[in-house]
């Protein structure tokens, strides 16, 4: 079945391809596709594209050559005479050219991704139209090669290096035992209160680590907080329920909770049923968690991780059963709903700070201080950039304008 369709489609494809590259020209040129000047022009011949140049595509892994040209003077837009450009390639200067690709009118560049590194190529480009193509203009020889460093990303390397240095520096400081201050994070003060209330009421604690997989760093942050909450539920002998929507999160969740119960000295209270998988489907998961909420009536609900539309369904259902709700996410779209419907909300970066705050682990606190250094850098550059740009705009000073542009370019990624 498959083979048959394959055979049927190949000749069709060739015909269609030829049509796309202006069929009459190909017929006039005979069976070969060697680009040559057409000897009997029907009307005035098309003007060829100008300034054809080919060079190795920069900052890549190799195997790629960029070809650029200036528009043919007859390329005057969608309704002009030129319908497109055809690019040819050969390994020798004067013969053996094969059609590489056809591009629509208005194009002035293309990338040949089929080049073999180290081989010399010659290119020719011609303008095409329904009646006759233009003369082909050549460029080359050119070789493709891979680069060892992407120069366009030099600034990123510098910025990344600054951040990595700051974070690692403070982590080491923390590991050495230096005291590091962390401001109060109000949502987290409530964790103990919430677990305590659940214990008093004899009701379970519900923990939702978001609906994303472990490839989302927010889920990892949620798991770290789960470790701290699980230690408390183990100590207070309060029931903990962690329904999850990803099987890998379930695996990590079980490891995390088990370790926490072990550290709290209550491995006997641990069971694999604490962390259980429901379904990968977002709303199937929500339907089930809503069911768990209205039936088990947890006294405390924690939503810490990456959330999407389900955030409000969960938070409103949690509110209707009168649970204390602590939420935290770095999904900006869902923060408003948590802020509106929960008792406490960890906003954005606070989610990542939470694990350091709760564990009081010095290395974690150190990395938090490193993040702050990153923020200081960001604020500094923003203010400097704004000041220079404003002064430049107000005074019209060229040097300032240049400096402002340089600053902006340092934070440009392309």
């Amino acid at each position: 079945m498959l083979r048959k369709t394959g055979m049927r489609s190949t000749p069709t494809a060739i015909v269609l391809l030829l049509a796309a590259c202006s069929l009459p020209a190909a017929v006039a040129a005979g069976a070969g596709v060697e680009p040559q000047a057409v000897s009997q022009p029907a009307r005035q011949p098309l003007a060829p594209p100008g300034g054809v140049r080919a060079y190795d595509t920069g900052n890549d892994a190799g195997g790629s050559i960029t070809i650029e040209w200036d528009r043919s003077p007859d390329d005057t837009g969608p309704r002009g005479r030129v319908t497109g450009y055809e690019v040819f390639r050969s390994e020798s200067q004067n013969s053996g050219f094969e059609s590489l690709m056809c591009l629509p009118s208005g194009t002035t560049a293309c990338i040949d991704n089929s080049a073999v590194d180290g081989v010399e190529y010659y290119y020719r480009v011609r303008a095409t139209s329904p009646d006759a193509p233009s003369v082909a203009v050549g460029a080359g020889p050119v070789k493709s090669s891979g680069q060892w460093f992407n120069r366009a990303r030099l600034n990123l390397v510098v910025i990344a290096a600054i951040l990595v240095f700051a974070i690692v520096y403070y982590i080491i400081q923390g590991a050495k035992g230096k005291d590091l201050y962390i401001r109060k994070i109000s949502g987290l003060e409530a964790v103990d209160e919430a677990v305590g209330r659940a214990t008093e009421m004899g009701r379970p604690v519900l923990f939702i680590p978001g609906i994303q997989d472990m490839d989302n760093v927010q889920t990892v942050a949620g798991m770290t907080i789960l470790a701290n909450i699980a230690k408390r539920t183990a100590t207070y002998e309060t029931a903990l329920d962690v329904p999850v929507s990803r099987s890998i999160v379930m695996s990590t969740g079980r490891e995390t909770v088990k370790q926490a119960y072990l550290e709290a000295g209550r491995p006997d209270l641990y069971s694999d049923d604490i962390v259980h998988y429901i379904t990968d489907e977002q709303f199937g998961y929500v339907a089930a968690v809503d069911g768990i909420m209205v039936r088990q009536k947890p006294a405390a609900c924690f939503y810490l991780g990456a959330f999407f539309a389900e955030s409000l369904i969960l938070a409103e259902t949690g509110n209707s059963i009168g649970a204390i709700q602590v939420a935290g996410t770095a999904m900006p779209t869902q923060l408003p709903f948590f802020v509106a419907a929960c008792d406490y909300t960890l906003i954005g970066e606070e989610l990542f700070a939470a694990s350091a705050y709760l564990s009081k682990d010095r290395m974690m606190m150190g990395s938090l201080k490193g993040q702050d250094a990153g923020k200081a850098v960001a604020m500094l550059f923003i203010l400097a950039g704004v000041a220079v740009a404003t002064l430049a705009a107000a005074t019209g000073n060229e040097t300032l304008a240049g400096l402002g542009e340089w600053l902006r370019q340092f934070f440009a990624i392309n």
Partner: protein
Amino acid sequence: MEDTPILASPLAQTISLWIAALLTLMIFSFLYKDNPAYKFAEHLFVGVSAAYWMTVGFWTTLIPNLMAKLFPSRMGTIFPVAVGNRAEYFYIVPLVFGILLLTRLYSRLAWLSRWAMAFIIGFAAGTNFTRYLQSDFVTQIHSTMIPLYEPTGNIMTAVGRIFSNLVVVIGVVCALIYFYFSKPHEGSFGKAARVGIWVLMAAFGASFGYTVMARVSLLTGRMSFLITWVQSIF
């Protein structure tokens, strides 16, 4: 030539419409209170959706991107997949990691699944590090480096521009101060953090208000469906 498949026949379609409508009503019943109908729909949903994602993953990734790479000649004759000429044996690697992940189902070997998890975590950390650095850190700083004053003809527009630009710059900086953890929020630093919260609240309010539109659209979709169903009865 071919007969219409049984499941595409008008009768089957009518049954499908009815099942869909009843399930819709079962879920809506939760708004009144929890009840057996909702429980039924909920449990059905869980089973159906878990199997749905498994099936989709099987046909869209496992067969064409793994099995067809490892056993091109065999797979190509059975399933509609485009196959290369030669087997690409390095695809053994994800196969092994995938199987390691499944060891989780047998508690004695479950620790092996950590290798697969480690790969996933490493992948997440590596890709997230660079992407967030690029799009959400570097570029956002770039975009905030705006001149407060831009020379324009109209005084009203110029004043408006300056005001808006000031709000952007002060807003971003103050909100960043709110996220500053290692310094007490006291004095002028604390006041700036307070302004930061206001900016965040304005952003949250705006997002909330904007979202209502999305949520109502969804309900409109469901209600039109129910209206179609009711009309089909009469």
